[in-house]
């Protein structure tokens, strides 16, 4: 059979029939597609990506624009002016009742202020286009649109997750494959270092680094470096193990006998064979990056204003949650759905790419 025969890439089975060979990736894709939850997760993650990163092209409101007459409006499909007027009139009635009931003249001032606002709002409501806006997810304590803020918050959170995952994977792959392939003192050095880092209270180190930053510095950048610096540990261990188990196999022997150098063996032969497991761990790590970033932002040590991540939004929402629950619930639900989808996708990928995995459950 000539080498360039088209049938050459078709395998035959034991009955000498031609079968279409299935690559690892095609096989994994087939398995992934059969897992309904993973497919759902994939769709949700995809939609989030499109909406958050395409936000600039989509007709969303500004996430920084403040509107003092639209403070803390509940989610509604009605125009903002109508909602705000209803809210002000409700507050006015409450105040009047309180003044009559407890006889507190000091509340009169507030009443006057609200009456003035009502007059102002009634004057503008039909002329000013801003009162025609619809805040379907309500507004926050500065009258900013919650929908826009949640989307831009997601952009920052997902961005940090992506960059962090990539950086961690890069460092982990390089150090893990170096240690695994070369062995000896280099492996020992990397191994001891990884052990040491594991015994550090990891989030606390990040908190220390974040608290050290001078105010006004580019905290997002430092934040992701700080998280990525410590998150490569697991990936490097996994890659190292994979490389060690593969480096004495026949195909590596064959490559070496044909004169391939260490670099070529690592990058052309060993790493492509470890790619599955790298993808699995990266996908599973992605949500934990987002959680860690939001955890820091929640404590006030993460992303700083005017930017906001999901964590910042949740922590802002906590402050007024009794009266304005949507300010907490909107970002919390948005974030939870994304993390949920990511976890399902990660589990699905693990089952698809590593069918013999012991961790299946």
């Amino acid at each position, binding site marked *: 059979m000539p080498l360039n025969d088209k049938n050459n890439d078709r395998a035959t089975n034991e009955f000498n029939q031609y079968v279409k060979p299935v690559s690892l990736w095609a096989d994994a894709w087939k398995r992934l597609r059969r897992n309904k939850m993973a497919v759902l997760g994939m769709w949700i993650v995809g939609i989030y990506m499109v909406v958050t990163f395409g936000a600039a092209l989509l007709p969303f409101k500004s996430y920084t624009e403040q509107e003092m007459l639209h403070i803390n409006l509940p989610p509604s499909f009605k125009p903002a002016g109508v909602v705000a007027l209803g809210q002000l009139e409700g507050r006015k009635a409450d105040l009047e009742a309180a003044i009559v009931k407890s006889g507190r003249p000091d509340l009169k001032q507030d009443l006057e202020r609200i009456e003035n606002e009502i007059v102002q709002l009634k004057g503008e409501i039909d002329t000013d286009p801003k009162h025609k806006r619809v805040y379907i997810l309500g507004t926050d304590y500065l009258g900013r649109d919650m929908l826009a803020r949640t989307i831009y918050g997601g952009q920052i959170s997902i961005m940090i997750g992506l960059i962090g995952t990539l950086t961690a994977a890069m460092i982990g792959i390089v150090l893990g494959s170096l240690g695994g392939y070369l062995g000896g003192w280099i492996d020992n050095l990397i191994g001891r270092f990884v052990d*040491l880092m594991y*015994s*550090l*209270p*990891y*989030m*606390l*180190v990040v*908190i*220390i*680094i*974040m*608290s*050290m930053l*001078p105010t006004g510095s580019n905290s997002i950048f430092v934040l992701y470096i700080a998280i990525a610096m410590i998150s490569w540990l697991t990936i490097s261990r996994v890659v190292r193990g994979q490389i060690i188990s593969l480096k004495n196999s026949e195909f590596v022997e064959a490559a070496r006998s044909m004169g391939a150098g260490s670099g070529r063996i690592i990058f052309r032969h060993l790493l492509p064979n470890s790619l599955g497991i790298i993808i699995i761990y990266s996908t599973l790590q992605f*949500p934990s990056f987002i*959680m860690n970033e*939001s*955890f820091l932002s*929640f*404590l*006030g*040590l993460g992303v700083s204003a005017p930017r906001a991540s999901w*964590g910042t939004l*949740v*922590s802002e*929402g*906590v402050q007024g*949650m*009794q009266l304005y*629950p949507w300010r*907490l*619930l909107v970002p*919390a639900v948005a*974030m*939870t759905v994304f*993390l*949920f989808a*990511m*976890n*399902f996708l990660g*589990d699905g990928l693990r089952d698809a790419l590593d069918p013999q995995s*012991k*961790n*299946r*459950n």
Partner: protein
Amino acid sequence: MSRFIVRRFLSVIPTLFIIVTLSFFLIRLAPGGPFSGEKKLPPEIMANIMRKYHMDEPLVNQYFRYIGDVLHFDLGPSYRYKDQTVNDLIGNAFPVSILLGTLALGTALVLGTIVGITSALKQNKWQDYAAMSVAVLGISVPAFVVGPILMLIFALKLKWLPTSGWLSSRAGALTLIMPIITLMMPYFAYIARMSRGSLIEVMRSDYVRTARAKGLKEGVVIRKHVLKGAMLPIVTYLGPAFSGIITGSVVVEQIFVIPGIGRIFVQSALNRDYTVIMGDVIVYSIILIAANFVVDILYGLLDPRISYK
């Protein structure tokens, strides 16, 4: 076994030493000090304060002085709370965090294994699907979302539980419920998933088939043979789980205003209260190292195939 314990114990010392060194220099290199507040102090007073805390000496001297103090279990004065030492601050807060952490871990362990066993025995039935959906939810939702939402529902709307505080307040033990649930959620979920997975694996193993073939009742097989083998991975997970719970309590203590070391840590990090941050890091590291140490020994006791040389 005893030689293993001694050797393992000795290996802790360099780790601790490196942690102390690292945190010392990290914090000292930071711009801005504990006394660089909004109000500018006159230079003479600043110099006096610096002298009092030995901060005018070269960094190396400060470092050795600090190491010497730590060896005497003296973590130094707090720069912010003038009348308290770091030992006082951490000493008061430590039992709070440890109590919260152990209660959360204990609850996660008990509930997690019960749920895991149930869903393994009812594999692919509705109980299984329900339990595992709850588990994914527990893993996906971060504590700072669970905590406030619990608080919103049970404390603010239904008014069943107190919003915050700790044992000493009027509500007593009721104050514990929400922090424990918030803190344990992810670990409960993980333990449930792990115990389900390992139980299913063990139930298919040869020695369990042998036990069934002997004619043992299903209950006896599960109790005496399956559970013992299936618990091993969970024991290994306890080390990381405990350290995760201890660090996770930073956020829970913040939400529910609990006077533990996590709250102190965040406050001192925001205040740049150097000695308190370092003391806290040391305490945290000791807890983590001790947890892993105990787990290593437990593992050897539970699994006869592992021998320590």
